[in-house]
C-alpha cells in the first residue's frame, strides 16, 4: 500500500468514525468517488471496529507478569538436585515444570514435577500437596502413573512420578476418532484406573485427554490423580483472578471445562460420580473424535454441559458404534449423578463384558456398515439365539434377600441371618457379579415381601430369596433365584440337612448361584466359594449368635456378644471373624453409650484381637476395618489407619463400614470433601442404617457446611423423631449458628434422656448464653457421673470453652489427652473448639495428637 493511501485511509476512518451509520455511507460515497478499493478498505476497518470498542483495552501486561511469575528464570536441565540428575525438560503444566531426571540412587528414570512457587509459596498449600501426594502414592495400578513421593531439596519442591513414555490421549485423538475397538480398550483401562483410585477414596477431579498418556504398547496411564484438588483450593485463595479465568469467581478451577461434570461447574461438592461424567466425556471424544459438548465459547460449553444432550455418537471412518457402547457412554454423561454409574467398578464391569464380546466379533465392528447389512442382521439373530438359548442369561447384579426364618423358633434367626451374610460374602468374590451388600438388604429382614418388588426397588438383575425352616432334626432351606427382567425362576432348590451340615449348605447354594449367574468364573473364584471361614459348625453357630446380637446391641446384652465370640474361638482358634468381632466389642466399651473401660485397656485388647483377625485371614475386610478403627481412635496413627481402611475397601468396596470410618479419618486429616464423599458412599451402601446417614451429617458439620448438616439431621429425624444422635448433631449446628435458645431447647430434652451425651453441648450453650449458673449445674452433674478413670474430661473442656474459661478448658483437654480419650481426635476438626484456636496451647496439644492445628 502506498503511504499516501494509508494517510487517506486514516483521515477517512477518523472522520467516518464520528458519524452515525447512515451519515457514514453518505460521507464515504462523497469522499472517495470512484475509488472503490479505498472505500472498501475504510469500510472494512469501520466494520471491524464496530461493537469492539473494547478490543485490546485490557492490557496483556498482567498476563505477562503472570507468565513471568510462573516461569523459572532458567532451565534446570543438567543440574543435580538432591539425588536427581536433571536430564531434560518435558513440559509445563499449571502446577509447574516437569523434567525428566535420573534417580542416581536407584538408577531409574523418573519425572519430576517442580511446583511453582505460587503453589508452594505458603505452608498450607505445601502441606496439602504433601498429603495428596502421600495418598496418591498408595495407589499401585498398571493404569495409574505412579507417584513415588514428594521431596524438597535445594530450595525446590517437587513430586517424583513414574516416567512414562508415550503420547497424550489428546495428541492421539487430535480430532480423529480412534476406532471402536481401540476406544473400548482405552475405556476399560481408564475405568479400571479410576475404580482403583476410588476404592482408595481418591477422586481425580480433572480427567481429560491431556492427563492421559498412552504408551507405545497401548497401555493407558492416568496422570495427576488427586492433585487437582490442591490446585483448585489454592486458586480459591490465590491472588490470580483475572478476566481470563472463566469461572474463578465461583471458586472453580478453570481448567478445561469441556470435561467437567455439571456439579463441578456449579461448584458443588464433588464425589466419585463426577469422575464418571468426565470419563464419559473422554470416552465420547475417543470414539468420535469430537467433544460431547463442543461449542465456540466457554459460556456456551458450560451451558451445554448443564442442559444439552450430546449428539448421537458417530465415527466417520466407517466404523459402527455399537449401541451398547453408546448406551454406556451416555449413561456416564447423565446430568443427574444419580442416573450415572454409581461406581467406576460398575462401569468397568460393563466395559469388560463389551470388550469380551468385541473380541468375539471384532471384525464385525471393523466392517463397513453398507457392505453386508444382511449378514449383520443374520449375525444379530444368531447372537440373540446364542445369548438367549444356549448360554445362561447373564445377570450383572444380584441381591441376596435376607433368608426368612419361617420356623416358629426365634432361635433360628441368627442362623438365617448368618447364612444370608455368608452367602453375600462368598458371592461378592465373583468378579463378574455385583452383589448388593448385606447392609443394603438387611432392612428387608423379617419381612415377608415379594422378592420381585424388592429386587425392583434395589434395581438388580436377579434376586436370590430363601426360607429356612426346622422339621424335626432337619434344617430345611428353600431357595429361588429369580430373573428380574421377566420374573422367571432361573433356579430353585430345596435342601434338608442336619444342623452340622450348614457349611455344606453355604457351599452348595453359592455354587448353584455361581453356575447360573457367573458360569465363566475362574478356578480361584470357585475355590473361594468352597472356602470355609471355619470347619466347625458349632463355632460358626456361636459366631452367628454373636453377630445377630451385635446388630441389636444394648448396654445390657453387649457382654453376651463377647461370650458368643469367645466360645466360637474356643471351639476353633483359627476362626478369624470372631476376633474381628471382639475387637469391635472392646472398642464399643469405650463409648458413653456402652461402657467406660479405660482407653489404654481397650487399645491393648482391641488391637490384639484385630491383629489376630488380620493374621488369621488377611483377606477378611472386616478385620482390616477393625484394625483401622483401632489405629484411628486409639493409636491416633492416621497413615496406618488409612492403609487399613483402603485395604478393606479394596477387598470389598460394597461394605459400608470401612467407608464410614474412612470418612472420619478424612475429616480429621483435613480432607473434608473426600470425607463427605466417603460418608455418602457408606450411606448409599447401607440405606437402612441411620448411623451411616448420620455419618454424612457429621462429615457435613465437620466441613462447616451447617445448612446441609442441619438438613441431613432433619432427614434422619423425619424418619425417627427420637433419634438422639441426630438431635445431638443438630444441636451442634445450632451452637455454631449461635442459635443458643434453639440448641438449649433440644438439649434440655436430650439431657433428660441421656445426661452423658447432652452434657457437653448443653453446658456450652448455657455458658454462651450467659447462664453461668446453669452451666455450673451441668458441670456438677458431670462431676457426679465421672469415675476416677473416666472423668468425662472432654465434656468439661467443652463446657468451659462455652463459659470462656480457656485455662480450665485446656486443663481438662490435657486430662482428656492423658486419659487418651478417643473423641479427642476431633479436636482440630470439630468447630465447637473454634474459640480455643488462637491459644498457643491449642496448637501444642494438636501436635501431640498428630493433628495439624
Amino acid at each position, binding site marked *: *500500500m502506498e503511504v499516501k493511501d*494509508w494517510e487517506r485511509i*486514516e483521515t477517512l*476512518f*477518523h472522520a467516518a*468514525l464520528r458519524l452515525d451509520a447512515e451519515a457514514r455511507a453518505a460521507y464515504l460515497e462523497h469522499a472517495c468517488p470512484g475509488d472503490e478499493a479505498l472505500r472498501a478498505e475504510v469500510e*472494512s476497518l*469501520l*466494520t*471491524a*471496529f464496530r461493537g*469492539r470498542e473494547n*478490543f*485490546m483495552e485490557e*492490557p*496483556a*501486561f*498482567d*498476563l*505477562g*507478569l503472570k*507468565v*513471568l*511469575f510462573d*516461569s523459572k*528464570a532458567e532451565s534446570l536441565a543438567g543440574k543435580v538436585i538432591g539425588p536427581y540428575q536433571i536430564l531434560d525438560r*518435558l*513440559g*509445563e*503444566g*499449571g*502446577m509447574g515444570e*516437569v523434567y525428566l531426571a535420573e534417580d542416581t540412587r536407584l538408577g531409574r528414570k523418573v519425572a519430576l514435577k517442580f511446583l511453582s*512457587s505460587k503453589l508452594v*509459596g505458603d505452608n498450607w498449600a505445601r502441606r496439602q500437596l504433601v498429603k495428596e501426594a502421600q495418598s496418591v502414592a498408595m495407589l499401585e495400578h498398571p493404569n495409574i502413573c505412579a507417584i513415588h513421593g514428594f521431596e524438597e531439596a535445594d530450595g525446590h519442591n517437587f513430586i517424583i512420578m513414574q516416567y*512414562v513414555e*508415550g*503420547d*497424550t490421549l*489428546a*495428541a492421539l485423538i487430535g480430532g480423529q476418532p480412534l476406532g471402536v475397538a481401540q476406544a473400548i480398550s482405552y475405556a476399560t483401562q481408564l475405568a479400571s484406573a479410576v475404580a482403583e483410585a476410588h476404592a482408595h477414596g481418591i477422586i481425580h477431579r*480433572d480427567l*481429560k485427554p*491431556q*492427563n492421559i*498418556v498412552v504408551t507405545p504398547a497401548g497401555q493407558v496411564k492416568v496422570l*495427576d490423580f488427586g*492433585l*487437582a484438588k490442591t490446585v483448585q483450593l489454592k*486458586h480459591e485463595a490465590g*491472588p*490470580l483472578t483475572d478476566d*481470563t*479465568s*472463566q469461572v474463578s469467581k465461583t471458586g472453580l*478451577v*478453570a*481448567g*478445561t*471445562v469441556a470435561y467437567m461434570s455439571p456439579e463441578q461447574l456449579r461448584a458443588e461438592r464433588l464425589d466419585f460420580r463426577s469422575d464418571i461424567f468426565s470419563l464419559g466425556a473422554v470416552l465420547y471424544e475417543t470414539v468420535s473424535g469430537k467433544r460431547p459438548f463442543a461449542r465456540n465459547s466457554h459460556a456456551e460449553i458450560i451451558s451445554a454441559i448443564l442442559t444439552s444432550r450430546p449428539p448421537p455418537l458417530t465415527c466417520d471412518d466407517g466404523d459402527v458404534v455399537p449401541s451398547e457402547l453408546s448406551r454406556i457412554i451416555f449413561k456416564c454423561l447423565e446430568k443427574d449423578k444419580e442416573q450415572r454409574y454409581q461406581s467406576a467398578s460398575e462401569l468397568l464391569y460393563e466395559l469388560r463384558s463389551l470388550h469380551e464380546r468385541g473380541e468375539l466379533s471384532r471384525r464385525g465392528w471393523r466392517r463397513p456398515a453398507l457392505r453386508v447389512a444382511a449378514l449383520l442382521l443374520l449375525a444379530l439373530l444368531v447372537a440373540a439365539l446364542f445369548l438367549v438359548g444356549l448360554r445362561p442369561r447373564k445377570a450383572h447384579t444380584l441381591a441376596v434377600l435376607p433368608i426368612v426364618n419361617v420356623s416358629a423358633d426365634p432361635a433360628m434367626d441368627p442362623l438365617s441371618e448368618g447364612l444370608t451374610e455368608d452367602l453375600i460374602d462368598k458371592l461378592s468374590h465373583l468378579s463378574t457379579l455385583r452383589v448388593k451388600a448385606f447392609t443394603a438388604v438387611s432392612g428387608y429382614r423379617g419381612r415377608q415381601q415379594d422378592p420381585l418388588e424388592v429386587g425392583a426397588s434395589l434395581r438388580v438383575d436377579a434376586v436370590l430369596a430363601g426360607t429356612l425352616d426346622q422339621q424335626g432334626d432337619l434344617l430345611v432351606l428353600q431357595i429361588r433365584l429369580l430373573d428380574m427382567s421377566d420374573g422367571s425362576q432361573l433356579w430353585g432348590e430345596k435342601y434338608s440337612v442336619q444342623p452340622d451340615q450348614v457349611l455344606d449348605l453355604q457351599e452348595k447354594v453359592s455354587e448353584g448361584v455361581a453356575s447360573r449367574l457367573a458360569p465363566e468364573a475362574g478356578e480361584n473364584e470357585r475355590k473361594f466359594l468352597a472356602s470355609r471361614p471355619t470347619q466347625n459348625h458349632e463355632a460358626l453357630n456361636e459366631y452367628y449368635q454373636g453377630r445377630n446380637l451385635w446388630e441389636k446391641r444394648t448396654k445390657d446384652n453387649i457382654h453376651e456378644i463377647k461370650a458368643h465370640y469367645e466360645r466360637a474361638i474356643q471351639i476353633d482358634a483359627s476362626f478369624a471373624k470372631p476376633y474381628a468381632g471382639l475387637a469391635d466389642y472392646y472398642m464399643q466399651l469405650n463409648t458413653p453409650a456402652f461402657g467406660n473401660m479405660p482407653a489404654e485397656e481397650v487399645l491393648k485388647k482391641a488391637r490384639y484381637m484385630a491383629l489376630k483377625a488380620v493374621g488369621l485371614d488377611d483377606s477378611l475386610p472386616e478385620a482390616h476395618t477393625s484394625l483401622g478403627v483401632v489405629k484411628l481412635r486409639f493409636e491416633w496413627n492416621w497413615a496406618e489407619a488409612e492403609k487399613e481402611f483402603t485395604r478393606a475397601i479394596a477387598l470389598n468396596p460394597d461394605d459400608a463400614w470401612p467407608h464410614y470410618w474412612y470418612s472420619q479419618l478424612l475429616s480429621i486429616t483435613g480432607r473434608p470433601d473426600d470425607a463427605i464423599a466417603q460418608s455418602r458412599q457408606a450411606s448409599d451402601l447401607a440405606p437402612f442404617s441411620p448411623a451411616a446417614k448420620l455419618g454424612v451429617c457429621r462429615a457435613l458439620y465437620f466441613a462447616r457446611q451447617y445448612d446441609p448438616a442441619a438438613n441431613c439431621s432433619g432427614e434422619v429425624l423425619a424418619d425417627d423423631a427420637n433419634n438422639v444422635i441426630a438431635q445431638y448433631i443438630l444441636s451442634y449446628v445450632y451452637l455454631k449458628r449461635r442459635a443458643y435458645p434453639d440448641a438449649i431447647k433440644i438439649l434440655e430434652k436430650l439431657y433428660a434422656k441421656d445426661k452423658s451425651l447432652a452434657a457437653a453441648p448443653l453446658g456450652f450453650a448455657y455458658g454462651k448464653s450467659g447462664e453461668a449458673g446453669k452451666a455450673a449445674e451441668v458441670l456438677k452433674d458431670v462431676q457426679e457421673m465421672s469415675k476416677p478413670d473416666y472423668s468425662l474430661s472432654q465434656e468439661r473442656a467443652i463446657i468451659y470453652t462455652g463459659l470462656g474459661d480457656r485455662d480450665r478448658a485446656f486443663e481438662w483437654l490435657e486430662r482428656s489427652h492423658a486419659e487418651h480419650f478417643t473423641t479427642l481426635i476431633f479436636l482440630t476438626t470439630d468447630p465447637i473448639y473454634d474459640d480455643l484456636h488462637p491459644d498457643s496451647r491449642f496448637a501444642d496439644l494438636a501436635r501431640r495428637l498428630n493433628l495439624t492445628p
Partner: protein
Amino acid sequence: MSSPSEITDLLVCWNNGDQAALEMLMPLVERELHRLAHNYMRRERPEHTLQTTALINETFLRLVDQSRVSWQNRAHFFGIAAQIMRRVLLNYARDRRRDKRGGGAYKVSLSEADAVSDEKSVELLALDDALRRLSALDERKGRVVELKHFGGLTVKEIAEVLGVSPVTVARDWDLARAWLAREIGHGS
C-alpha cells in the same frame, strides 16, 4: 546482579543509537521484572488491581542511576518493558502450541493458566503476526499498541514516551485496533 551504573550506561548508549546496548539491556530488565513479578504476586490480594506503571517505575528506579538519566531515558525504559512483555507472552504462546502438538506427555494442565493459553495463545500468536505487519506499515502505531497493550501504559504516558500529543496517540490507538481486529478476524 548488574550494577545500576552498568545498566544506566547501557540505557544511555542505546538512547544514543547503540542497538547492541539494547540487546544487553533486555535480559537484565527481564530478570528484574521477573523478580518484581514474584514480589507483587505474593504481596497483592486478588481485589487489588496491579499498578502497571508503578511496577515498571519501581524496576526503573531500582535498576537505573537516576542522576544520570533524562526523562527520555525513562520513557525508553518503559518501551523496553513493554517489548519484554510482548516477547515473554509470544514465547509462552509458542511453547504452548508446540506442547499441544506433540510429545508433551507431561504437559499436564491443572490451572487456569493452561485453559487461558488454549485460546489466548492462539490469539497472542495471531496478534503478534498482525502487529508485525502493522509496524511495517506504520511504525508509530505499532509502538502505540506495544506500549498500551503489552506495557499497560496510559495514553498520556505513551504520548510522553513517543513525544506526540495524547490526541494523536488516541487516534493511532483506534485505527490500530480496527486494523488489527480486521486482520485477526475478530471484527467479523
